[in-house]
């Protein structure tokens, strides 16, 4: 069996070292009935300047994986195993002080709900300048000037006035832009975004997505973007990793994964995208519910809901193997399913 090698991705892309390299990441939380394993062996590698989308449903472990990158789980009492390297630096071995320096410095973070991530009692400009002073050690005056530049970068109109505003005085779209400005304030090499557009209206969501895409390309910032929305993934991703029950079940270029999915779960997801009218077609269904990670079956976690399940799926947990260059999938029968794709 061809075990996925995390080094192969960087070897493909040439000599540049990956900005993010995760191997064997496992995360468990203590619950009423002992430890629950919510992330089970995630392998990931991302080259500088690339955008990776972690796609999955609630409980798939995508947000936890993202938080593990900046060592946020330690304070939550989670049990974290495996190795996370950001730009060659092992996050799991950093001290708390070193972690603080990394967060907001090398790595920027954008949350889903800016209202809870921003401090309601300080003006926006103050909060951004504070980050810059902390990490760069520059004067307030310089930091405020930098904040003003950042507001231009994220295209906030009337920047002077908005810097003086409190978070509740801004609309949802402007708050999310301010949050992006803050994440970009120390010119991070890696941007982590956890469903940053989910709470926004459609016409605002697309603006923020395009802004992120633009900033990321212009500055060469690498990005890990968590979402459950295939449309959002298609809009922003260079590569897509699909998560199910705490593991990556498929990974490849956006086109490969979204247009030519190999894993039955990814196929089912693309198949139940709502389109057309009820008069023309019934929606493709994925039976059952997303799995309860505290009670996973032996073998493949997706097997109970899988239409292509075979006997060995219930016994053997599949490892990731290459389908094509840069496209790997964790399914025992992925290659043989190609002919029978339902449309």
């Amino acid at each position, binding site marked *: 069996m061809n075990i996925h090698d995390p080094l192969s991705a960087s070897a493909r892309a040439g000599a540049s070292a990956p900005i993010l390299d995760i191997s064997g990441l496992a995360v468990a939380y203590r619950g009423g009935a002992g430890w629950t394993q919510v992330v089970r062996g995630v392998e990931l590698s991302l080259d500088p300047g690339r955008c990776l989308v972690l796609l999955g*449903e*609630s409980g798939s472990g995508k947000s936890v994986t993202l938080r593990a990158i900046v060592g946020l789980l330690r304070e939550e009492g989670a049990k974290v195993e495996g190795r996370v390297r950001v730009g060659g630096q092992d996050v799991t071995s950093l001290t708390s002080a070193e972690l603080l320096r990394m967060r907001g410095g090398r790595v920027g973070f954008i949350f889903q709900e800016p209202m809870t991530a921003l401090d309601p009692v300080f003006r926006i400009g103050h909060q951004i300048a504070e980050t810059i002073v902390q990490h760069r050690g520059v004067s307030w005056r310089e930091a405020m000037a930098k904040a003003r530049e950042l507001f231009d970068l994220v295209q906030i*109109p009337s920047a002077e006035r908005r810097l003086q505003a409190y978070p509740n005085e801004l*609309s*949802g*779209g*402007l708050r999310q832009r301010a949050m992006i400005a803050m994440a970009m304030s120390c010119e991070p090499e890696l941007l982590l975004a956890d469903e940053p557009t989910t709470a926004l*209206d*459609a*016409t*605002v*969501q*697309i*603006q923020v*997505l*395009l802004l992120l895409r633009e900033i990321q390309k212009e500055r060469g910032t690498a990005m890990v973007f968590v979402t*459950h*929305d*295939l*449309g*959002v*993934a*298609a*809009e922003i*991703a260079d590569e897509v990793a699909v998560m199910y029950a705490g593991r990556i079940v498929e990974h490849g270029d*956006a*086109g490969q994964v*979204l*247009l030519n999915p190999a894993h039955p779960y990814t196929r*089912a*997801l*693309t198949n*139940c*995208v*709502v*389109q*057309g*009218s*009820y008069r023309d077609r*019934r*929606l*493709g*269904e*994925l*039976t059952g*519910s*997303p799995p309860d990670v505290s009670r996973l079956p032996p073998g493949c976690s997706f097997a109970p809901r899988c239409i292509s399940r075979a006997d060995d799926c219930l016994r053997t947990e599949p490892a990731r193997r290459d389908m094509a260059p840069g496209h790997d999938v964790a399914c025992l029968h992925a290659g043989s399913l190609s002919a029978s794709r339902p449309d």
Partner: protein
Amino acid sequence: MTVDFSRMQAPLPLIEDHGGPQQPLLIASGLRKEFRLSDGLFGGRTVVHAVDDLSLTVGKGETVGIVGESGCGKSTAARLIAGITPADDGEIIFDGESFWTPRARIDGERRRAIQMVFQDSASSLNPRMTLTETLAFGPRAHGVSTEKARAYARDLLGAVGLPPARFAERYPIQLSGGQRQRVNIARALAIRPRLLILDEPVSALDKSVEAQVLNLLVDLRDQLGLSYLFISHDLNVVRYIADRVVVMYLGQIVEEASSADIFAAPRHPYTRALFASKPSPDPRKRVSAPPLTGDPPDPVNPPSGCRFRTRCPIAESVCAASRPPLAAMDVGGTGHRAACWAALPGSGHSLSPRVPASVLGSVQ
């Protein structure tokens, strides 16, 4: 999954049809609702026009979808029609009879006629009631014996895909989001309504579960001859389930047409922008420039004239001067209406269609 209602013994009678098939099930006209907000400790009072002169009809067996962004008044409109929030003004005709007038109480059989399903499946269920108790509650309130109501509750659970042997005695917390939403749908159906108002019923669900619930809703509508008023911000969902679509912006309807017409040829610039903002699941079809800039304006101070003009790519001076009427867009009578000066012949907008002399008489 199959739903079979023919074998079920419903304890409450069907609400009789009075108006016949041609009579729309629901006619809402001139609905208006203002919310007064206190503006800080020393501030004056501000007024939000949540719903401003809204009229719509729902035919028998028809599904009408309402789309719009947050704050456009779509949920308030739903609550006004259901009578949950009292309207300031307006009227509802249900199957040819007056359903409520502002500030009047709705009672008896009428209370049963319209039911709602809400977005948050958890907070709309009583956490201390089992599913059987939850589903039996409505019929009991309408005079059905406890025994009969509970038996029917078990049947209903089966009908929405929750086998009663496993689910009857469970509490809401023991269910997944999709299962809870099935319970909410079953509860709404338990008292045999004719119109179901669904306010973002699938928005909080995972994508794989969303399709299950939409398929269930289509099955139930066909089997029970229901009409739906379906509210969502998700265009694909509305396109899938609705026969007719209403687009709202800042408390007003800006466009209304059959689902096929509006998606094929949207006439209002806001509708066009909304459609163009929807990301496609195909990475080869990316959006290159955002169709609109900025956020929707504050509904406390809506712009004068056409409320969309501040974000509209084709706004002109006529748009600021007065509010465009919701006017018919075709002579054929397909019911495609839009409120845009640029789409209205002879409006003075530079893009307004020229009126051929022969038609002029009929438009005036």
